């Protein structure tokens, strides 16, 4: 490795309910700078816990986690969270704040002057492809699901983080919106040179968006690698996860004539 990983988990463990539930079990995982990593797993696999350990929304029991070279235990968790973007499942927008208020929240917490925040909000609305004028002052309940998630992405990017964590960000969207949003985010990731960790239960989405995929089950990291590397894995669960997208691709290839407009 030429460069140090931007996020590194080393033998990390986490249990809940006094040890009765093992959420994360001895996981070691590196995320390189500029990488787009997807963590795939079913519910209860520990993928969300693993993600939240990185910005200390959850504290690890064992092992060490470093972010940008620093052990997260030695960093103030509040400051840590302000420099890591976080996109919540179905947005997690504050219902009483306008779109602009939601997007500008982290810069505001950091003490950025209002005029600067306002300019940044406009910039971010452009970035996530929402028209400034009609959306700026709307409340979250006046937006569609896709628009809410675009605001969620803009909010995560507001304080110019190097790292973005995404918790099933596109899960609740219809397929078209989901695809458009995924593509748009992938483009933002590249353009802004972000390091992104995204959680999903959908292997197809992971393959289409991520550089590398980590597979989790029962708190353990089963496999990690590029889609090509994963397909060489002899783990039966990984094989099962890959079967669905493969079959879908074959059937779609057969059903849709090349170059035709459906």
């Amino acid at each position, binding site marked *: 490795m030429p460069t140090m990983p931007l996020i590194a988990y080393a033998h990390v463990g986490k249990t809940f309910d006094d040890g009765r539930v093992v959420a994360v079990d001895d996981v070691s995982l590196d995320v390189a700078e500029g990488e787009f990593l997807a963590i795939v797993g079913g519910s209860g696999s520990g993928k969300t816990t693993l993600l939240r350990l990185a*910005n200390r*929304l959850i504290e690890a029991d064992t092992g060490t986690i470093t972010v940008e070279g620093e052990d997260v235990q030695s960093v103030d968790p*509040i*400051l840590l*969270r*302000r420099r890591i973007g*976080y996109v*919540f*499942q*179905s947005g*997690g*927008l*504050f*219902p*009483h704040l306008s779109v602009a208020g939601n997007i500008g*929240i*982290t810069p505001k*917490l*950091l003490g950025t002057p209002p005029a600067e925040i306002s300019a940044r909000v406009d910039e971010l609305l452009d970035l996530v492809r929402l028209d400034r004028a009609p959306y700026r002052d709307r409340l979250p309940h006046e937006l569609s699901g896709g628009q809410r998630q675009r605001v969620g992405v803009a*909010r995560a990017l507001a304080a110019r983080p190097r790292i973005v964590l995404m918790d099933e960000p596109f899960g609740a969207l219809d397929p078209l919106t989901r695809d458009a949003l995924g593509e748009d985010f992938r483009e933002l990731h590249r353009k802004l040179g972000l390091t992104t960790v995204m959680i999903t239960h959908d292997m197809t989405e992971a393959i289409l968006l991520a550089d590398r995929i980590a597979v989790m089950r029962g708190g353990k990291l089963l496999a990690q690698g590029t889609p090509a590397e994963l397909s060489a894995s002899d783990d039966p669960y990984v094989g099962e996860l890959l079967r669905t997208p493969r079959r879908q691709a074959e059937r779609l290839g057969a059903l849709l004539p090349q170059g035709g407009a459906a």
Partner: protein
Amino acid sequence: MNMSADPRLAEAWSHLPDYLGSHVRVSLAALALGLIVSLPLAILSRHRPVLRGALLGLASIVQTVPGLALLALFYPLLLALAALSLSWFGVGFSAFGFLPAVLALALYSMLPVLRNTITGLQGVDAAILEAAQGVGMTPRQSLFTVELPLALPVMMAGIRTAAVWVIGTATLSTPIGQTSLGNYIFAGLQTQNWVFVLFGCVAAAVLALAVDQLLTLIESGLRNRSRLRAILGSTGIAALVVATLAPAMTRPQTSYVIGAKTFTEQYVLSALIGQRLKAAGLSASTREGLGSNVIFEALKANDIDVYVDYSGTLWANQFQRNDIRPRRELLAELKAMLARENITLLGELGFENAYALVMPRKRAEQLGIRTIADLASRSANMTIAGDYEFFSRPEWTALRKAYGLSFRGQRQMQPDFMYAAVASGEVDVIAGYTSDGLIAKYDLITLGDVRHAIPPYDAIVLLSPKRADDDGLQKALAPLLGKIDIATMREANLRAAGNDAASSPDAVAQWLWEKVGKK
């Protein structure tokens, strides 16, 4: 009858700035105190289930105490505290009126505020709380920028409930010496002035609605981020406070405070004393509708300066004496005992207002009952009614013991309704007052107390410790001493019990002065 031309309505309006002002001040002070205490407690307890349970339990218990009792309890409590503070720190404070009312009402306001704030905060979606943490908020920032704004509608509903409760309950602070819109209601009830009662109720309801609407305005302003509405609402509340403070500021500082208990005669006599003081060029105000024990303690503590009490009442209640003495002897000893408390017994007014057992004349003649001794043998088949105090007073114990009375049932009643109740046969005997004009009106007779179980009840004028050497006050009151005989007082009381304009305490006091002043 043209209501608008009724002079009682004009009189009611003339009291409005004072009563309403005091009411607003005591209510808003109590509400503010309640909020200052409840809001931090609710916030503190939101992650502490044990504290939360204890707080809500305590607030619920307070709520089950009737408002009047809660107010009444704070008076002796503060009296004891004031005495302690005086002996420990050399600083005393008045346990009368404003302070006990504010404390009791603040306590009363706590339950809705606590409950709704806790419920509102708990109702905030966990995902939103997580998002607040995720974007880098400290717990404090999360509380103030996310949780409280989201809980606001539920919290404001609680605050509005508390405001309406406090404004309603504040009408009950009159008996502990806090002037309020309750003065209309208590005075109206006692002197059968229904215009006053209605006026007090309507004024309290209008005030409650107005404050509720202003709070709603503030809430909608906060919720819709409309600064205009929030400012309008807050300005409204502030204007209310200023408007009620202004008359209090400009009102001349009255140097003398006259006390009155809760019955008609007391309203008339306090009005009479007030008129005499004004005639002598002394400024005076009245605190009326005070409880029997409150009024004596208030005099002792210099919170009021002068009032009329009855020798037997003080003898039995304040000094816990149950021996019966001849009239002169009792008065002399009472004077000495009062002097030890630095209270001046200025003199007697000339009439007695004793408890007496009262029956319809016709019925008594039929049964051949002339004295309480005659009644004793028949009491097992009879019912008796008395005022709220009578059956717990030592006189009642003494009467039962002296005559062996044992009634089939006993009832407590508003004094003014007792006479009608016994006249109509709803009860057989009542414990009435000898100076009450209704005895003649309903053709009732008082039964002779041949064994002298009831002590004498001379109406006496008492002065507070700080007025002991006040010649001006004593000179102004001197023309009243020994001048009011029982027949005159009965007639005055009968007039005051009427339901027309001439029956206002002031009008009756004027009439009384015209009768006795010339003597």
